[in-house]
């Protein structure tokens, strides 16, 4: 870890001001000034020397502005400083948006969930060790143009969807696929004012791996708006991993279904552990539309979801595992009593 300056912000505009002092064209994720919320991503990466911010702006003082959960009949609003555990344990979220609660409950460990914020969560970085461990020379994400050690290296956990020849890193988080599935909107305040974008547009593709999001340096995520829908109650999160708890998913599926007489009126499908960025499978959703929910239609949706998969040596199993995970999630959601 390198020496850095630590400051605290008391309100949103102060936080944004403090962060906006940075200049240059560095992507937000590599800007010299970084926000710190729970610190569970950024401190790890600073200790590893992977991230080297010169200044940290602590935003935990914005708790009153960004720390609340509001559920109305229009939808669910989650402040960026809501802790993972807080949202996971919220009875209303558990009842009306189970996929949100479960994606958080099945993530990380109790200690981490108590610390980590939702804003920080969606910005967690890949687990690709070639990225995290700076002694590996080739990583386009850490050092643009240096190559990608994972392409022909150890890539059992890497992504098969949305990958490019510059980077195949998996987006590891659980909450983001649920947000993507439910069509969440992310609200942002920056030096030039506030804006709101579909969550699906927050993370970028692999054309420039070093540039992970569409945030500009100094832009602060203030929260997430999840629109209400007839499918949110019949929703769940299936996470398949090597051990039962405290591990990232190898393949996960966030699904929400609106069923009428056993037929799929509307399906929302997010995938995790298998994709470069938080993944919504519009293809799988379309494949299910109007079909009776059964093994066959679920399988067809899964085929559609992974039609474009591009596996490498060690992660080839993820294509089949990803499909089965989605089938399992769809059938389990279909059986939910709501």
């Amino acid at each position, binding site marked *: *870890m*390198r*020496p850095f300056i630590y400051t605290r912000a008391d309100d949103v505009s102060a936080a944004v001001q403090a962060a906006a002092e940075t200049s240059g064209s560095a992507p937000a994720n590599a800007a010299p000034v970084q926000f710190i919320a729970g610190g569970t991503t950024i401190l790890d990466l600073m200790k590893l*020397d992977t991230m080297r911010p010169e200044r940290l702006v602590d935003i935990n003082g914005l708790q009153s502005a960004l720390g609340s959960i509001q559920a109305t009949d229009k939808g669910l609003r989650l402040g960026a400083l809501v802790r993972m555990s807080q949202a996971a344990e919220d009875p209303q979220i558990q009842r009306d948006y189970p996929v949100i609660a479960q994606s958080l409950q099945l993530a990380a460990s109790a200690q981490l969930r108590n610390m980590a914020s939702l804003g920080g969560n969606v910005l967690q970085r890949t*687990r690709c*060790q*070639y990225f995290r*461990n*700076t*002694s*590996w*020379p080739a990583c386009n994400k850490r050092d643009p143009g240096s190559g990608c*050690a994972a392409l*022909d*290296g*150890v890539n*059992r956990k890497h992504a098969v969807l949305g990958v490019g020849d510059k980077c195949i890193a998996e987006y590891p988080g659980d909450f983001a696929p649920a947000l993507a599935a439910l069509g969440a909107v992310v609200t942002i305040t920056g030096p030039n004012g506030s804006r709101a974008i579909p969550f699906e547009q927050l993370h970028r593709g692999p054309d420039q791996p070093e540039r992970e999001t569409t945030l500009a340096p100094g832009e602060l995520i203030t929260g997430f708006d999840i629109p209400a829908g007839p499918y949110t109650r019949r929703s769940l999160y*299936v996470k*398949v*991993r*090597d*051990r*039962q*708890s*405290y*591990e990232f998913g*190898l*393949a996960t599926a966030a699904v929400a279904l609106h069923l009428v007489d056993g037929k799929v009126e509307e399906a929302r499908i997010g995938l995790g552990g298998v994709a470069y960025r938080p993944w919504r499978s519009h293809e799988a959703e379309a494949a299910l539309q109007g079909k009776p929910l059964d093994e066959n239609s679920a399988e067809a949706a899964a085929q559609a979801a992974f039609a474009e998969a591009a596996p490498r040596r060690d992660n080839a*199993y993820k294509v*089949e*595992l990803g499909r*089965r*995970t989605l*089938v*399992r999630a769809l059938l389990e959601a279909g059986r939910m009593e709501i």
Partner: protein
Amino acid sequence: MANAQGPETTGTVAPPLPTPRKTGGIGAATPRVDGRAKVTGAARYGSDFFGGPDPAYAFLATSAIARGRITEIDDSDARALPGVIDILTHRNVGDRVKPGKTFSDKGYMGTSIAPLASDRVWHDGQIVAVVVADSYEAARDAARRLRVSYADETPSASFDSPGTETVSAESKSKEGEKAGQEKPKVGDAPRAFEAAPVKIDQHYETPTQHHNPIELFTTTCAWDGDQLTVWESSQNVYGYQNGLAEQLGLEPSQIRVVSPFIGGAFGSRGSLTQRTALIALASKRIGRPVVLEATRQQGFTIATYRAETRHRIRLGADQSGKLTALIHEGWEVTSRKDEYKVAGTDASTRLYACPNIDSDVSIVHADRNTPGFMRSPPEVPYLFALESAMDELAYAAKIDPVELRRINDTDREPIKGLPYTSRSLMKCFDTAGQAFGWSRRSAQPGSMRDGDWMIGWGCASTMYPTQVGPAAARVTLRPDGAVRVQTAAHDIGTGAYTVIAQTAADRLGVPLDKVHVELGDTALPPAPVAGGSNTTASVCNVVAKACDEIRRKLAAAVTVSGGPLDGADPGRITLINASVMDDQGRMASLKDAVAKTGHGAVEAYAENIPHGAPPTAMQNLYKGQSALAGGAKLKDRIQFAFGAQFVEVRINARTREIRAPRIVGAYAGGTIVNPLTAKSQLMGGQIWGVSSALHEATEIDRRFARYYNDDLAEYLIPVNADITEVQTIFVPEEDHQVNELGIKGLGELGNVGLNAAVANAVFHATGVRIRKLPIRIESVLDAPVPT
């Protein structure tokens, strides 16, 4: 806490916990005597000692290549950082630190690769510089600002990599011969195999695994003139002392090694690593104590690990399942420079009756750090292969796997025909099998199901050599009954403090809480390396011997004419209830008895050389050499502990997660000194067995011969949710041939064979035989769903 100096202090602020020390002697389920110190933080581990008031901190820089030469180290940025004091590299260390000899070469080192001896890089993550600074943070920052340039060469990573060198473990190992390395063989196995009506001929593989003790690899060194003190968690303090003396050109008496508590070791702290002498040198150079705390990642390359192995097993049997041929060939990866191997055919050829046996072990030199001991080093990989093959044979011969073991049970080892001192293998199978419910198993693979989960039940044998080492101890008894036991044995979390205290309490007839045990310090009489599951047997026996000497001294004093037990037979005096008693039931207080000796306290120093150890064993022990005797190394008999492992796996029929929620094991280990700590040992082993079957593997990027998943987020071990039920059963066994107290040692018995039991259960669940560990989702993803 008013005072947190050591394990003996109790808090004055916090009310003392209700003392759990009701019990006393050998065989009593006794909570750890050091438990309170551990949970309150009073127990101090290696890096808790700062060596003095003004320590400096070291941080390692390690190589980013596995093979080549360092061409340049640009340290200008690093030196410019405030607080940086010194930087050690090959340019200023060179031959100031000798490489030392490895353990298998009668030395003390885990590796003979001396990292700062030259510009040569032998493996990934080799130490290339030690940065010393006023603070840990400055040292870390500076280490990362070193710019090291290399002339790198293409390394060989492992099996099948171009450029590796394969040699026979036997032919190359002159050291091995000295250590009694053999190649177990009897009869004509190839011919018998050819002729056998039932045959198995298969290959098995186990991966690289790392110990990852929770306590990181740390070293603190401080000099007082030409006296060096080293605080470092160690399983072998005398070995470290003597090894460091060799490396630094000192007398062993100039070095003290202190290691009272150890935060996990599993073999990783059995041999001296190269870092320690470098920290001693750094401390000497700057004239200040130096504290090193290596990172989790560095722990993968600056210490040892369990090497990947391959096996070919050929089993021949007649129609009844009786073995007629067993051929076990093993291959093990090691470093370029060292010949470390585990050669587990010693054990795997001595588990079952078989008239024709052959074996062979080869080592494969690659550009890797040198592997080393890791819990049950030979048995874990070699019995994975054998016990998987036995399960395959059971299916081939259509015999229940437990019955197959019964058919091949024996009371003499098959190579030389020596008798086992005791062997309760089938009793263990029957006991554990019953607890597990084995009789309810339907033999057909894929035939058991619970909703979405396919169920598989598997079993395997475990065995571990019973070894005893030479040991010394000093015991002091004071008139008030307070006992002090001193021996440089090691409590690696196993409960050594407790069982040693129990032994002394038992022999001296005092309550357990009167016994104070001091361990892990070269200022104390020597004990062997805490390895090979020998500590309880070696140390409890010598402590008992010292206690008996105290009893004799007291007996002589109290039975003299005019003494309190005048006229009694000194040979029939016992110590009980903090008193001295004769065979008539007459009692004298300890106070009177001690006074009668004319001393203020009675002290005894004892040494013990076990059966089969050379007469020079004690001299060698003082030189840090622990000649463990036993197992298959004795001329007149063979001594092993045995057990039976059962496990249930559940595999999701769709997504194929593999879980092992239920483990049942039964073990016979002679005298169980403390059923509580013994159970913890075995249970930890059982869980580790599942871990080694389903989770643990260090991935290697074969292009660069570098480890990939070098932290605990990526190197998996099971969590509580994975394993919901563990049953650990003791099968009573008496064996006073192995040693006076009849102790066999349990530290490593629990995890052997369990990896095979898991693989066998996976086969039972799916019909797919996985011969390569770890077994993961992708191993069974394509298995058809049984109908």
